[in-house]
C-alpha cells in the first residue's frame, strides 16, 4: 500500500503547553517580581519560629509603646508586645488564608460547577439558583454575617470532637474565616466551571471520545476538565489578593482572627490610633505596607498567569 511513514531526520523534543506557559510567565517582569514576593511570604510563614526575636505574645512591660530599637526592631505596642515578631507571625495567617480559602472555594466551585454543567436539568437549576442567592448578597457583608454567626456552632463542633486544646488556640477563628470566605467565593467559580462545561461538552473532541466508548465520568474529568481549567486558574489566582484583603477586613472589624493570633488586619485596627504619632507610626504603617505589597504581588502573579495561559490576548 502507498501508506508509509514519512522519515524525519530529527525529532525535536515536544513542546508541552505547560512548558510554554512557564516560558511566557518567566518573561513577564511584574509577574516574576510578584512571584518572588509570594515565595518570600511563604518562606517567612514557614520560617516564622526562627525569624521572630521573641514569642509574639510575650509582654515586655519595661518597654511599652517603645519606638523601633535594636531589641524591638519595630517597637512595641501598648501591651509591650514585640511588633516585629507579630508582623512575622501574622504572615502565617496570610499564608494560610491564601492557600486554604482558594482551595476550599475551588473544591466547592469545581464540584458544583461540574455537576451543574455536566448533569444539567434540574440539578443544574438547583445548584445555580443556590449560587444566585449567595450572589444576591453584597459579598463582604455576607462574609461578615457568616463570620459573626457561625462561630458558636463551630466552637461547639470542635469541642464536641474532643479538640478542646485547639479551640483555645484560636483554631476556630481560622475555620470561621475560611468557611465564610469560601462560602462566598464558590458560586463565581461554579458559574465559570459550568459555563466551560456547557461549551466544551458539544465540542467535537468530546463527541469523538463518546464515539470511542469513553465513560461519562472519564469524559468529564479527562477531556472536559483539563480544557476548562485555564480560566479557572486565572480567576482563582487573581482572587487570592482579594481574599487576603477580605480576611484583613474581617480581622480589622474584630470578627476575623482573634487575639492572640496575630493578623495584619487586626494590627492595623489596633494601631491606627498612632497614625500621627511621630515615634510609633511604624506600628501602623509597616503592616499596612506589607499588606499592600502582598496583595499587589498576588495580583501580578494572577495577571501573569492570565497572560501566560491566554497568549493571544495582547
Amino acid at each position, binding site marked *: *500500500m*502507498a*501508506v*508509509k*511513514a*514519512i*522519515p*524525519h531526520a530529527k*525529532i525535536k523534543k*515536544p*513542546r*508541552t*503547553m505547560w512548558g510554554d506557559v512557564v516560558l511566557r510567565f518567566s518573561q513577564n517582569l511584574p509577574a516574576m517580581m510578584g512571584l518572588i514576593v509570594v515565595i518570600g511570604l511563604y518562606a517567612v510563614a514557614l520560617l516564622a519560629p526562627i525569624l521572630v526575636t521573641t514569642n509574639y505574645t510575650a509582654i515586655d512591660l519595661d518597654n511599652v509603646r517603645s519606638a523601633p530599637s535594636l531589641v524591638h526592631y519595630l517597637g512595641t505596642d501598648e501591651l509591650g508586645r514585640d511588633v516585629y515578631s507579630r508582623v512575622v507571625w501574622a504572615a502565617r495567617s496570610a499564608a494560610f488564608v491564601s492557600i486554604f480559602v482558594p482551595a476550599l472555594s475551588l473544591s466547592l466551585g469545581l464540584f458544583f460547577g461540574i455537576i451543574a454543567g455536566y448533569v444539567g436539568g434540574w440539578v443544574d437549576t438547583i445548584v445555580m439558583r443556590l449560587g444566585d442567592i449567595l450572589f444576591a448578597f453584597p459579598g463582604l457583608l455576607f462574609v461578615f454575617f457568616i463570620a459573626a454567626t457561625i462561630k458558636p456552632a463551630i466552637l461547639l463542633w470542635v469541642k464536641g470532637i474532643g479538640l478542646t486544646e485547639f479551640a483555645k488556640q484560636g483554631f476556630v477563628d481560622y475555620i470561621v474565616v475560611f468557611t465564610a470566605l469560601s462560602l462566598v467565593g464558590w458560586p463565581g467559580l461554579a458559574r465559570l466551571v459550568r459555563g466551560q462545561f456547557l461549551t466544551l461538552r458539544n*465540542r*467535537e*473532541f468530546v*463527541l*469523538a*471520545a*463518546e*464515539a*470511542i*466508548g*469513553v*465513560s461519562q465520568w*472519564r469524559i468529564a474529568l479527562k*477531556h472536559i476538565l*483539563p*480544557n476548562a481549567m485555564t480560566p479557572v486558574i486565572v480567576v482563582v489566582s487573581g482572587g487570592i489578593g482579594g481574599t487576603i484583603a477580605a480576611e484583613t477586613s474581617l480581622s480589622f472589624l474584630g470578627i476575623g482572627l482573634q487575639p492572640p493570633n496575630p493578623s495584619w488586619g487586626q494590627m492595623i485596627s489596633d494601631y491606627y490610633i498612632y497614625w500621627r504619632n511621630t515615634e510609633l507610626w511604624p506600628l501602623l504603617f509597616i503592616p499596612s505596607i506589607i499588606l499592600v505589597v502582598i496583595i499587589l504581588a498576588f495580583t501580578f502573579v494572577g495577571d501573569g498567569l492570565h497572560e501566560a495561559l491566554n497568549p493571544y490576548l495582547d
Partner: protein
Amino acid sequence: MSEQKDVLLRVDGLKMYFPITQGIVVQRHVGDVKAVDGLTFDIHQGETLGLVGESGCGKSTTGRAILQLYKPTAGQVIFEGEDITAMRGESLRKMRRRMQMIFQDPYASLNPRMTVGNIVSEPLEVHSLFNGKERREKVKELLDVVGLNPYFVNRYPHEFSGGQRQRIGVARALALNPDFIVCDEPISALDVSIQAQVINLLEDLQQEFGLTYLFIAHDLSVVRHISDRIAVMYLGKLVELTTRDELYANPMHPYSQALLSAVPIPDPVVEEKRQRVILEGDVPSPANPPKGCNFCTRCPKAFEPCYETEPEFKEIESGHWVACHLY
C-alpha cells in the same frame, strides 16, 4: 459493486428532532427542528455509501444519530441484526468498538491537552485492549498505518498540520478495528492538495481492513470518486438513492439533477455546453417544512400533488430509489 451483498447496517425510519423550547423557568415545548425526518436505507458490507446534500440538510446529524451520539427521536438502526437504538450503557459501549467516526474538523476533534499517543491509545485503554508495552507498540503501528511518523507519540495536536491531524483522527478511529466508519466530511476542512492524500488513505485502508464507509460530503466529485452507491438528501429526507454510475448518468429527482448540473467539468468545450439548473429561493426552515414534498418550494417541475402529499420513497428501477411524484 452492483451484486447484492450482505447488509451490514440498516437504517429504518430514522428521525432526529431537536426540540425548540421557550421560557426561562418552565421550558415549554413549542416545536421541533426536524434535522433528520424519516430515513430508510441499507449499507452493504464493504461498500462506501456516499451521502450528499447541501449545508444544513441533516447529513452530519444522520451520521451522529446512526452512531448513537445523539439519541434518535424515532426509528431503528440495525447493525448486523441488532437494534442499537435500544442499547444503553455497557452494551452500547461495547458496540462502539465496531462503529467509528472520522470528524469533519481536524482542529476541533482532537483534545488539545492530550498527546497524539494518548489520543490514539485511549480507545484501546477504555476497552482494556492490550497492556503497557503492547499497547504502545500498537499505537506506533497505527500511526505508521496512517502515514505518520511513530516518533510523534509525545507531541500535541497543535504541532501538526490539518492533514496530519486528520490522519491522527483516522488512526484513532482504526484503533478498535471497526467494521463500519462514518466519515463526516473528513476532507472538507483540508487543502485541496491534502484532500487527495486523505481520500487515498481512506481507500487504501478500506481495501486493507475490509471497512464499510458512510461517506458524508458535499463535494460531488469526491463522492463520485469514492462511493459505490450515493444517497442524496434534502431537508432531512432522502430524495434519491442509487449506484454511483446510475446517479451520475441518470439522475431522476429534480433536486439531484440540479445538484449534479452544478458540478464543473474539467474540459472547456464540454463545460461551455453544460446546462445548469439554477434553483430559486432558499432551503425552507427544518422547523417548519412545507406541506407535501419538502422540495416543492424550489422544484422546477412541481405540480399539484407535490404541494399536497408527501412523495413516497420507492424503488423505481432495480436498486434506484426516488421520492418524487413524477415517477
